[in-house]
C-alpha cells in the first residue's frame, strides 16, 4: 500500500522555519552555479551571435560532439551498468580497490589522461603498437580516439554514480528474484536496473555532460582536426585564443543545447 506523495496541505505550511533551513543552503548552492552562468549570459555579445554561429567550423564540431558523446553514453550504459552492479554487490578488499582505481580518471588532469591514452593506444603504445603492426589500424587523430578519450574520462562518473544507486537497491529484491529462479543476468536486467533507474538516469546525465565538456584528454590524444576530431569544446578553445567573444557565444549555444537536451530527456525519463 503506497502512501500518496501529494502533500495534503492546501495552504498553510506550518514548519516554515524548518523548511527555510533547507531552502537557504539550497539557494546558496544554486547561486554558486547560476551567478557565473548569468554573468556569462549578460556579457555575451548577442548581436554578433549569428555571425559567430555561421562560421564553417561550428556545425561539424557540434555534430561530432553529439555523435561522440552519444556513443560514449551508450558504451557507458552497456559496459558501465554491469560493472556498477557487480561492484555494488561485491564485498571484500579487491572490490574496494577496484572502485578506487576506477575513480582515477576523475582525478587525473585531463591532459595527463590524454598522455596515458597515447601511451596505451598510440602508434608506439602498449596496445596501439601491436594494433598498428598487425591490423594496420591507428587510433589517434580519428573519431574513435575522441570516443576513447570521452569514455575514459566520463564513464567513471557513470560507474560511481550508478554504483551508489545500485547499492541503495534493497538486497532483499535480489534474493527474492534468485528464489524465483532468476539468473544473475535476469536479476540485473529485470530487478536491479529498473529499481536503480533514477540513479542510472543521473549517471548517464553526468557522463554525457562530462563527455560533452571534455577537452584536455581529447586534444592530447585525438588532436584537433575540423570535422574529424574537433569537438565543440575544442572549437570553443580554439576560438578563445583569438576571439573570446566568439568563444563565449559558442559556449552559450552549447549550454543551451545541453540544457534543452537534459531538461527534455530527464523530465521524460525520470519521475
Amino acid at each position, binding site marked *: *500500500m503506497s502512501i*500518496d506523495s*501529494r502533500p*495534503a496541505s*492546501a*495552504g*498553510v505550511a*506550518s*514548519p516554515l522555519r524548518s523548511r527555510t533551513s533547507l531552502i537557504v543552503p539550497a539557494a546558496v548552492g544554486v547561486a554558486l552555479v547560476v551567478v557565473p552562468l548569468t554573468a556569462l549570459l549578460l556579457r555575451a555579445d548577442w548581436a554578433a551571435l549569428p555571425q559567430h554561429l555561421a562560421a564553417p567550423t561550428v556545425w561539424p564540431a557540434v555534430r561530432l560532439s553529439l555523435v561522440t558523446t552519444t556513443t560514449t553514453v551508450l558504451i557507458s550504459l552497456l559496459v558501465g551498468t554491469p560493472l556498477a552492479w557487480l561492484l555494488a554487490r561485491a564485498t571484500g578488499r579487491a572490490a574496494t580497490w577496484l572502485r578506487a582505481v576506477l575513480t582515477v580518471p576523475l582525478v587525473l588532469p585531463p591532459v595527463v589522461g590524454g598522455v596515458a591514452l597515447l601511451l596505451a593506444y598510440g602508434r608506439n603504445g602498449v596496445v596501439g603498437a601491436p594494433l598498428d603492426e598487425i591490423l594496420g589500424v591507428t587510433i589517434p587523430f580519428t573519431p574513435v580516439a575522441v570516443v576513447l578519450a570521452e569514455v575514459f574520462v566520463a564513464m567513471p562518473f557513470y560507474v560511481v554514480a550508478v554504483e551508489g544507486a545500485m547499492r541503495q537497491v534493497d538486497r532483499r529484491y535480489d534474493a527474492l528474484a534468485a528464489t524465483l529462479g532468476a539468473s544473475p543476468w535476469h536479476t540485473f536486467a529485470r530487478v536491479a536496473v529498473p529499481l536503480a533507474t533514477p540513479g542510472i538516469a543521473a549517471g548517464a546525465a553526468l557522463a554525457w555532460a562530462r563527455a560533452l565538456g571534455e577537452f584536455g584528454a581529447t586534444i592530447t590524444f585525438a588532436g584537433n582536426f575540423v570535422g574529424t576530431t574537433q569537438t565543440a569544446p575544442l572549437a570553443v578553445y580554439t576560438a578563445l585564443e583569438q576571439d573570446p567573444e566568439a568563444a563565449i557565444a559558442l559556449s552559450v549555444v552549447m549550454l543551451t543545447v545541453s540544457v534543452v537536451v537534459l531538461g527534455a530527456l530527464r523530465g521524460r525519463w525520470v519521475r
Partner: protein
Amino acid sequence: MAGTSGGREGLDAHVVATRGTFGVDVTVRAAPGEVLAVLGPNGSGKTTVLHALAGLLPLEEGHVHVGGRTWAGPQHALDPASRRTGLLLADHLLFPHLTAAGNVGFGPRARGMPGTAVAERVTTELAALGIADLADRRPGGLSHGQAQRVALARALATDPHLLLLDEPLAALDPATRTDVRATLAHRLAAYDGVTVLVTHDPLDALTLADRLVFLESGRVVQEGTPSEVVDRPRSRYVAQVVGLNLYAGNATAVDTVLTALGPVVTPGFAHVGATWVAFAPSAVSLFPERPEGSPRNTWPLTVAAVELLGRLARVRLVDGAGHPVVAEVTAASVTALRLHPGTTVWAAVKASEVTAYPA
C-alpha cells in the same frame, strides 16, 4: 498516556478521497477516549481512510476535526507533521537505519523532547510490549512480529491526539497477541484521545473497540457497538465476520420470514416488511434423514467443504440454488455422518435459535 492529549471533543471526520480509480466516502465520529474499530474486506478502503486522517492523502471533500481543532477543512489542511497522529502502518515500515530504540524515539525526538526523556520513554514503551531486549537491534535483525511490536511502540510513543493503528496485531503469535491485546486495552482505556483501529480479527475488534465501523467498497455498511453488530449484522460480510448465518427476507406472518432458503420460522417479532434473519453455525444440527420433532426449520443441503478444527468441525453447505449455510458440529459427527463434499444432509435449526430484525 492519560492527560497528555487534548481530545476533549473527540473525532469528527468526513473523508472523501480517491486513490487511482478507487474512492472512499466515509464519515467517522468518536467521543474522546473511544476506540473505533474499522473492519471490512480487503481493498474496502480502511487504510485509505487512515491515510486521509493522517494527512498523507488529501481530502477531496469533507473535513477532519480532532479535539476541537480543524485538521482539514474545505479551505485548509494541516500537513502530516502538524497533526498529532500516531500512525502504525500495516507493513510496519521501520526506518531501516535506526535501531528499535531509535525508531521508537523518532517521534518524541522530532517533537523536541530532550534526550534523556526520550530514552526513558523508549524504554517504557518497549518494555510494555515485551521487547525491551531488542532496543539496540536494527529492523533487519528483528522477526516479523518483533518488528510489528516496535512499530506499535513507535506509534504509541508520540502522545498522539489521534491514534491510527492499521492491523497492529496481525503478525503476532497467538500468545503474544493475547498479551499485547491486553496491554493495548489497558493503554487505550487510560487514553483520552480517539483511537481508530483497523483490523481483520473480530476478536481484536470485540475486545478493544467501543464501536465498530464496517466498510465495503469505500462506504460504511454498518456501524454500532460490538453487541449491536454481533447481534444484528446487516450485511453478509459482517455476518461472516461475526460468525452468523444471515439471510435477507420478507416478514410474511408474525413468526415467519420468507428468505432465499425458504420460509424461516422465528420466535416471533413485531413488524412486517424487509427483515434480516440470523442464526449461529452452532445452532445448525445435521441429520442424514429429515428430522422429526422440535426444530421447525429444516432444509436438505449439500456439503461443500468440511474444515476440521480439532474437536470441532465447520461444515459449509449449500442449498439447491447455491445459498450457503455454515454449520458447526463435533468432529465425531463428521465421521458419523460421513460428511465430505457432495454428501447430502438435512440441516435443522430451532426457531428459538433464530434472530429476526427489521432490515
